[in-house]
């Protein structure tokens, strides 16, 4: 079984494609590293997770209560 030979375009753009690929992989790695740092060092984070969690309700300030 043989692959189709590379189009001449692929050869001309080889450095661009490799460079862009490496750049994107590096970007993903950096975002991952940033995420790890932010999550492990940041404030405890919690948000809505489909169950009622009264402790997350913000206290009501101002306005008139019915």
């Amino acid at each position, binding site marked *: 079984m043989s692959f189709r030979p590379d189009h001449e375009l692929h050869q001309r753009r080889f*450095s*661009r494609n490799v*460079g862009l690929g490496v750049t994107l992989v590096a970007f993903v790695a*950096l975002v991952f590293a*940033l995420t790890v*740092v932010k999550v492990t*060092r940041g404030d405890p984070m919690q948000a809505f997770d489909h169950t009622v969690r009264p402790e997350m309700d913000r206290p009501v300030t101002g306005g008139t209560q019915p």
Partner: protein
Amino acid sequence: MSDVQAYPQSGEAQFGDYVALLKPRVMSLVVFTALVGLLVAPVGVHPVVGFAAILFIALGAGASGALNMWWDADIDAVMNRTRSRPVPAGKVQAGEALGLGLALSGIAVVMLALAANLFAAGLLAFTIFFYAVVYSMWLKRLTPQNIVIGGAAGAFPPMIGWAVATGGVSIESALMFGLIFMWTPPHFWALALFMKEDYHKAGVPMLTVTHGRAETRRQILIYTVLLAPVSIWSALTGIGGPFTLAVALLLNAVFLKGAYDIWKRAEPVAEADKYAVEKKVFKFSLLYLFAHFAAFLVEAMLKTYGLGGWA
């Protein structure tokens, strides 16, 4: 300006041509000064956050470089020094430079906001706007003071680095800004004195073209004299110390002597020795900025051993 002109396409653009659009040499100075701004700040930053922040500041600077190359392709095509840049050389189309510049600007600002804080990101966005719009599009072709005002764009990186760590500005970061701002005119006018053919041909209103070379020599001296107090003041603040002060005094003494020599020289004398003094002062000005920021960094390191600073 460049969008009405087409430059003959010569072969396929390689990855390196797109990197060249980002002005890697300018980026290296941005990386260094921003890194110093970040490291001398009184607040520590996690190494990964610091690395990412510096990377995106550099990317933002590179993006503004690409926007500059898109707008100024017509000037670049005329000047010997810039003729081989990717757009005038026909390797990358002007529209591609515009697209790359805009896309990378957005990525750099958003990512800096996420990695560091909104204030630093806002400062980066303003820097890109200042360099691409205020300097490149507006002032460069309008006034011989283009270098002075354009120098502000190059002066922002240490301020952004400081903002990454502290989330704001302070007298120290303002003085680091002032140092590069006041240093830029004598640095570039010394270059303009021995690269006169280029600016003449391009019709850029360089001080040498509009006000003459004698006036340029005088302005170099004036700005170098004004630079000295900014430098000394910075050495007396929280980022300075005895070591920084000693380095600053030495650097300013040499720079002032060089600027004085340039001012004293008559044009025929300079032409006779092929602008030896001007070239020497230009080279020294690069060392001046590097050594000054390196001194801040050394002072910060000394502080960790209880040695540096004004305690």
